[in-house]
């Protein structure tokens, strides 16, 4: 009995020691690095949240397949739904930072949600990376040091690009604004006015409309009477469709240069045949000729997600592309940091040299003053051909 017991004890102890000896160093080396994501995963913007998820996942799979980071540690994605609600977003971010101890947090598509999360991340000294929300003050938040980085469009830069495009493509001389009556429309009213003023120009008129407006004909009639030869459109997919239908009814064929609102839903179904007349901004299109990175990402997407059979199924494309590049750049920052310490990763972002990405070849994308990796030279202008978002000129 004692003999049996002691033998059992011996075996158990030996086992424990062996386990501790064999497993512990490896266990430590393989403790995963958690990457957080707070975005809308339900409701109207669920597709956008899914696109961000897919971009991050493809990048993470690629990093893990080549051995992970920091001596073999694998990356894992932890997602939370913000339901497009700033309060819920902050709660989710707090949970990911304090309980899940994520090394880096990614944000979603809603500017108000990201704006609410920014102060928390700067206070907790954790990097916050934006792959979508375009509000200017998200990265220009006044904090020093600033832990917020972005790989996406920025309103004030988009506004400059909209003016350049209208002048270059349509020879526009007198542009009118038709903007949805909410903070997003307001932020672009500022940006567009600033862009026009910088070139010594004035808008033909500034008209607002409600998301629920049945008829935008009166507003558009005013712009037409003011001699507008081009329209700047800012609104989500439903309101943008109302503008296009109203133009149809008036029989006014005027060039429309739009922010990326139409890309967020079933624009062709809502706006009808004239949907294709709207030229809008994107950061990437899977329809243009793909480089080696584009081919690689496309193949990975098709292998991982059975519903993706071609470029048309990668929607919204900007979410996938921005998230992929943002994750790749973040992995370089973690590599440069040599640890998962928040401040070290922040400085790691500044140490990124060149990276051949999906959207472009990045060359020192971030500095202490520049926290936006994408600028006006990187935008792609697109239009809807049937229900595909196609770069202008291609068909």
């Amino acid at each position, binding site marked *: 009995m004692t003999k049996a017991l002691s033998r059992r004890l011996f075996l158990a102890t030996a086992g424990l020691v062996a386990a501790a000896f064999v497993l512990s160093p490896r266990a430590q080396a393989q403790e995963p690095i958690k990457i957080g994501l707070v975005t809308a995963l339900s409701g109207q913007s669920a597709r956008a949240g899914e696109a961000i998820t897919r971009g991050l996942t493809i990048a993470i799979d690629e990093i893990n397949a080549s051995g992970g980071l920091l001596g073999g540690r694998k990356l894992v994605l932890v997602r939370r739904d913000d339901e497009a609600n700033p309060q819920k977003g902050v709660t989710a971010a707090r949970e990911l930072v304090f309980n899940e101890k994520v090394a880096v947090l990614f944000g979603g598509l809603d500017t108000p949600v990201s704006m609410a999360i920014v102060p928390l991340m700067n206070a907790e000294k954790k990097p916050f990376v934006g792959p979508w929300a375009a509000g200017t003050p998200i990265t220009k938040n006044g904090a020093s040091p600033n832990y917020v980085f972005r790989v996406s469009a920025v309103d004030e830069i988009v506004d400059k690009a909209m003016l350049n495009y209208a002048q270059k493509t349509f020879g526009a001389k007198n542009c009118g604004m038709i903007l949805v009556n909410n903070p997003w429309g307001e932020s672009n009213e500022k940006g567009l006015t600033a862009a026009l003023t910088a070139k010594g120009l004035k808008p033909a*008129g500034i008209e607002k409309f409600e998301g629920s407006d*049945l008829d935008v*004909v*009166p507003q558009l009639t005013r712009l037409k009477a003011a001699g507008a030869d081009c329209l700047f459109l800012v609104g989500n997919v439903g309101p943008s469709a*109302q503008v296009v239908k109203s133009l149809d009814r008036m*029989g006014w064929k005027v060039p429309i240069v739009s922010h990326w609102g139409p890309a967020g839903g079933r624009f062709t*179904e*809502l706006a009808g045949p004239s949907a294709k007349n709207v030229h809008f901004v994107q950061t990437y299109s899977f329809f243009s000729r793909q480089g080696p990175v584009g081919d690689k990402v496309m193949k990975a997407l098709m292998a991982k997600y059975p519903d993706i059979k071609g470029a048309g199924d990668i929607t919204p494309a900007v979410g996938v592309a921005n998230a992929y590049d943002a994750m790749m750049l973040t992995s370089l920052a973690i590599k440069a940091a040599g640890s998962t310490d928040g401040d070290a990763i922040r400085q790691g972002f500044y140490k990124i040299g060149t990276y051949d990405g999906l959207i472009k070849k990045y060359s020192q994308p971030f500095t202490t003053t520049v926290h936006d990796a994408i600028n006006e030279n990187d935008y792609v202008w697109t239009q809807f051909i049937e229900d595909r978002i196609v770069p202008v000129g291609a068909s």
Partner: protein
Amino acid sequence: MLASALLAGLALGSMYGLLALGYHVTYAVSGTVNFAQGSAMMLGAVFAYALIVALKWPLVPAVACALALCALYGLVVEAAAVRPFVRRGSNAWLIATVALGIVVDNAALFTFGKEPRSLPSPLALTPITVGETSLGIYPLQALIPLAGLALAALLDFAGRKTRWGIAMLAVVQNREAASLMGIHTGRVIAAAYALSAVLAGIAGMLIAPLLNVNADMGTLFGLKAFAVAILGGIASAWGVMAAGVLFGVAESLITATLGSGYTQILTFALVIGVLAWKPQGLFGRAAVKKV
């Protein structure tokens, strides 16, 4: 430019009028209204979308079925959110109908989804043109004021000539006496709620091809329609319809001449001004409370 604004305003205003008629019919017989009239309108559009686009039913049975479902919804509103409170002499039906509306809107979010969808109509494809110039409106927009007037006339006629209408009038005039004469007042009130939801449903179906279908499409419309009902004098069917048209035309003309920034400010200031001048509404008569 003013002509097309006027026509668009007429269509918009008739829509407000139809919704406001829904407030009128229940107020007239029971002194209560379904504040969430906008949700009933949304249901009309969502049911029509589900039957016509998703299930590919032919137009006529789909519309009939959608309206029947709206009527059913009206009965539910009355039974669940109005009657239990009125019976106890409470005014809580006010908030109960609002609450039920929020529940219905969110249930629609779950089932229909948040993504706006389109309900196409052959009457909203090409605008009406005179010679070469477009009038800036679809045929549907010209049809809506006609539908609104026809419905108001029908209500007026039914109220005076049919058995149900006379019963309703009797309940309006004196509920106790009507009930002593063998009129089932409870049923008359329930029927008024069903009718109210049907009117809202018709408005929703007419508006859907011009706008798009989504779960919160009714909220702002319902609110404006209530303002219209008060403006016209909620006790008068013709008054409510006329006030609706007036409100819509005012909105459209103000936007066309002064710019969209002034629309809400001026139209609602107009409502306040009119009510200060005529507290019973434009076409209402002062109610005499007998003690």
